[in-house]
């Protein structure tokens, strides 16, 4: 069972992946339909032709027999009176001729509207013939009418004769017996066995020819598609290697046909791509190196400036108010400069791949509370209340606690920046495979498309808006890099006027699979907010 299912699965995979198999099968199926239609048409024509010829022949033969019978009856002296003998003498030679020529005969009568059927007796018939071979509709016809008529029938023979039933044509004709002046009906039953054999022969020939043609079509199609599909497969493999970074891979081009031109174009495209990728990599590397170098180079003079600033700041009370204010401003901006420089260095470490995790079991609930505590002062300055909604128990994840705290702090600080005096909710949740923290604010929210851009470096939704919390514009980018370092997700949701929600999801174990988050990205009150907004 499992083997069969496996085979079926493999077959379906093969079917899904092999364009050649699909083309061959489609060709064979379509050809079968076409052959079927043509064969059906040919058979129908053959059958109609055979039947037409046979009907003409049997009607003519029956007419000849009836004409002969009428002639013989016309020759009988009119004074003779023995209907039974005349009937017998009339039909016996016809029956004998029928036995040599392959048709059966029934003489019934006298005829008339009230005449009894064949089953009532009084008939003379060919030996072995079942009288039921004459259809009731033809008997009925001769009760009303005396015109010579024919119809199709099934000729059956008496039990014990070992002759199978067969299709046939029955022709009925009327004759008048001089002995009693009554009309009698002669039924001639001609089997269609020979026509059936001919038709069977034609059908077998068509079927065999059709089957052979189908096999041939399948083979030809296989060969033709093979010629087309093989270069495509080669191109696919080369494209896969290119995608995997093996930018030196190229197609082998032979000939001058469409496939060869495709290969040439493909190779040109690969070369162009390779060149541009190399240029971009080089550019990126130079930029990163530059940022890193600048950051390092700025640290030494900054330390000196810092020390000087600290001296000035400590002595500000001795200065006139304007100078004291300048000393304070200098101190504040130096703090921001240090932060910026620190973030740039952090980014540079990420870019250089130098960031390393120091993992431990971290309780995200504690992290949330700690961050809230740290940012409480800032929040209170804005009149904002930050609330933690967490489960009763701990919510553990294997993580670098410093980086996780930095992520959560960035998210809360960012929320405070955009909360516009509304409360902020920090949600914590976990399950067997993951743990998550979501920060929900009810501020300006995000315009459509902005949720993907918020993690870009130095991106801001409104360039005119001041960074009141002293953010560097790199916080969310660093948070994203930290999250990626854990193998987790950092996603944003927002709607204009409905606030925003940032959700951090971490696997329970570093490098563990992450399929879903314990918290929804779209908050459950998102709709409510919109409804409230529209109501107002």
């Amino acid at each position, binding site marked *: 069972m499992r083997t069969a299912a496996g085979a079926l699965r493999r077959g379906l995979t093969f079917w899904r992946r092999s364009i050649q198999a699909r083309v061959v099968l489609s060709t064979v199926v379509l050809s079968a339909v076409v052959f079927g239609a043509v064969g059906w048409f040919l058979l129908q024509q053959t059958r109609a032709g055979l039947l037409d010829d046979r009907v003409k022949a049997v009607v003519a033969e029956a007419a000849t027999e009836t004409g002969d019978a009428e002639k013989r009856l016309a020759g009988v002296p009119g004074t003779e009176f023995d209907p039974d003998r005349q009937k017998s003498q009339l039909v016996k030679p016809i029956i004998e001729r029928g036995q040599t020529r392959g048709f059966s005969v029934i003489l019934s009568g006298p005829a008339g509207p009230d005449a009894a059927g064949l089953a009532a007796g009084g008939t003379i018939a060919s030996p072995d013939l079942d009288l039921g071979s004459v259809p009731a509709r033809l008997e009925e016809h001769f009760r009303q009418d005396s015109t010579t008529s024919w119809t199709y029938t099934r000729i059956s023979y008496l039990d014990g004769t070992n002759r199978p039933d067969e299709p046939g044509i029955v022709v009925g004709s009327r004759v008048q017996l001089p002995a009693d002046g009554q009309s009698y009906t002669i039924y001639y039953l001609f089997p*269609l066995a020979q026509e059936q054999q001919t038709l069977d022969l034609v059908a077998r020939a068509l079927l065999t020819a059709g089957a052979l043609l189908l096999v041939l079509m399948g083979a030809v199609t296989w060969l033709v598609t093979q010629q087309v599909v093989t270069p495509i497969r080669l191109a696919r493999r080369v494209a896969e290697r290119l995608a995997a970074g093996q930018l030196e891979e190229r197609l082998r081009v032979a000939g001058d046909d469409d496939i060869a031109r495709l290969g040439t174009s493909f190779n040109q495209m690969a070369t162009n791509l390779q060149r541009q990728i190399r240029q971009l990599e080089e550019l990126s590397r130079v930029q990163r190196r530059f940022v890193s170098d600048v950051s390092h180079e700025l640290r030494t003079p900054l330390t000196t400036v810092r020390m000087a600033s600290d001296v000035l700041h400590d002595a500000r009370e001795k200065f006139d108010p304007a100078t004291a204010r300048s000393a304070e401003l200098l101190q504040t901006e130096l703090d921001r400069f240090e932060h910026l420089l620190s973030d740039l260095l952090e980014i540079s470490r990420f870019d250089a791949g130098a960031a390393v995790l120091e993992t431990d079991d971290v309780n995200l609930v504690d992290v949330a509370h700690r961050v809230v505590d740290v940012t409480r002062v800032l929040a209170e300055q804005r009149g904002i209340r930050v609330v933690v909604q967490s489960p009763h128990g701990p919510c553990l994840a294997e993580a670098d606690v410093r980086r996780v705290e930095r992520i959560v702090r960035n998210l809360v600080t960012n929320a405070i920046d955009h909360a516009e005096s509304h409360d902020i909710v920090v949600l914590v949740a976990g399950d067997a495979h993951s743990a998550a923290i979501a920060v929900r604010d009810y501020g300006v929210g995000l315009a459509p498309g902005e949720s993907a851009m918020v993690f870009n470096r130095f991106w801001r939704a409104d360039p005119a808006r001041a960074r009141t919390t002293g953010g560097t514009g790199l916080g969310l980018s660093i948070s994203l890099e930290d999250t990626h370092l854990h193998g987790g997700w950092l996603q944003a949701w927002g709607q204009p006027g409905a606030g925003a929600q940032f959700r951090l999801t971490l696997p329970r174990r570093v490098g563990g699979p992450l399929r879903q988050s314990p918290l929804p990205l779209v908050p459950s009150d998102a709709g409510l907010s919109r409804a409230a907004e529209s109501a107002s």
Partner: protein
Amino acid sequence: MSRRTVSWLAGGLLVAAALSGCVSMPQSGEVQDVPGPPNSNTDDQFQFNPRPPLVGETPTETVDGWFEAMTATPVSTVVARQFLSSAQAASWSPEDGILTYDTARTPQGFGTVNVTLFGVNRLDARGQWLGPADPDDLTLRFPMEPEDGQWRITSVPDALIVDEAWFETSYQPANLYFFNPNARVLVPEPVFLPRGDQLPTSLVRGLLQGPIHSGLERSFLPNNAALDLAVTVTPDGVAQVPLRGDVGSLPAETIDLMADQLAWTLRQDPQIRSIQLLADGEPLVLPGGATEFGVDYGSAFDPAGRYADEELFGLRQGRVVRVVDGVEQPITGPFGTKQYGLSDISLNLDASLVAGVGESGTSVILSSAFGSASGLYAVPRTVMSDAVDLLHPAWDTAGRLWMVDRRPSGAVVSVFHNGTLERVNVPGISGERVTDFLVSRDGTRLVAALDEAPSDQVVVSRILATGRLHGTVARPIVGGPGGLLRVRDLGWRTPTSIFFVNAIAGRQSELRSASVDGSPATFDPQAVYSLQGDLDAQVISSPRTEDPIYLQSSGGGFKALLANSPQLPTGLQVLHYVG
């Protein structure tokens, strides 16, 4: 399973069903009419379909209807049977004979209806003319009984009773051909049979019933042979004769002779050109391998003599001459070269022997017709010498020389054969006053003109070869009570009919014909020629219908009756065909 898959499957099944339906022959269907050819009546006779009995007819009307119904054309008794009571209808056999009548009195009576017929003639079951009924008026009584409220006849004669006029149009004279006892020549037997499509069947059935006179003729159709329903004639004139019985196992010679009889008999139907015999459905093979033979088959057995000489022979100045195309030439035999004082001559059928009657009519001398020193009768020999008044002698195909000597006591019939002279007793001719006589070439009929008061008669006797040669009682075929005939001369017209010259008062005579069965000459009204100014004219004729016919006046002149006949030289004493 998607809807598309289901549609495909359904379509496939439909196609498969249609395909499978197409590869088998139909076993049912509508009843189709076949446009029939127009009703072609091959018979050129007019048709008369008599009315069946009507409701409420009186007994006399019923009898009248029955008489009318018997005149159905073509011949049929289906309607006539409907006028009879059930019992009588089941037993009535109209094929047992025919009664013809000239006139009939209107039916009279109620419980029993009487019908008187006048001028009644009878024919037997085979159609042989039996002559007038005696007496020739006949009163038939038809007892009547009601059946299902309608009058029906409970007893009728087993015969077809029809008026003469209908009989003449619906029946025709024909001959049934049998062989003479030693199967050397065919003997025709005249009968009357229905005209049209029924004629071939009636002819063969007549033959199958066997010889009419078993002593003088025989048939080679087996006794147990029977005709299967009817003889059919194809459009190209092939008569198919389906026989049953021991036909297939007959010896080749018998089949050959049977074919001769059938060919001669069936050739009388002008639409028949050839014949095919079927034995139990299979074509019968004739000696030589043929399965079909023409109606001219068996010409060797011609009753008129197949090998009979066609020329005329006469006497000029006592010598025998042969007349060929109007030119006379003496024969080479003794009678042609020497004077024997002959008054009459008769040559046998192959014209090899001449029987000469001496000048006084008392002797007969036999001589070869060819001049040769040896051979039969190279030297003339007298075969009869004590006769009184010999008539013109006659020969038959058996080589018998027939002589009638008119003695005062009456005629004596003698035959000279194989060197022996034999007297033959022919009742009704022997001892009578015979004015002329004929013997048919087949040797089975002797026709004689008898001089009787008040009217001459022509009588026919059949010659029987069983035991001693003798004749049957002569039966009158012409003349008899009520007639006024003066028969001067006789001559054959066909093998079954004769010419006779009848002298009428006022130096006028006429040439008439008669059938050897005695049936009226009304069937052949052309056979009367009027002759002015010669009471004793002689007719020169032969049974071969293609031979010219001449009348010889008592002055010796000849008159040809048919156009294109050769002119004859004048001055010949006598002139005769052979036989």
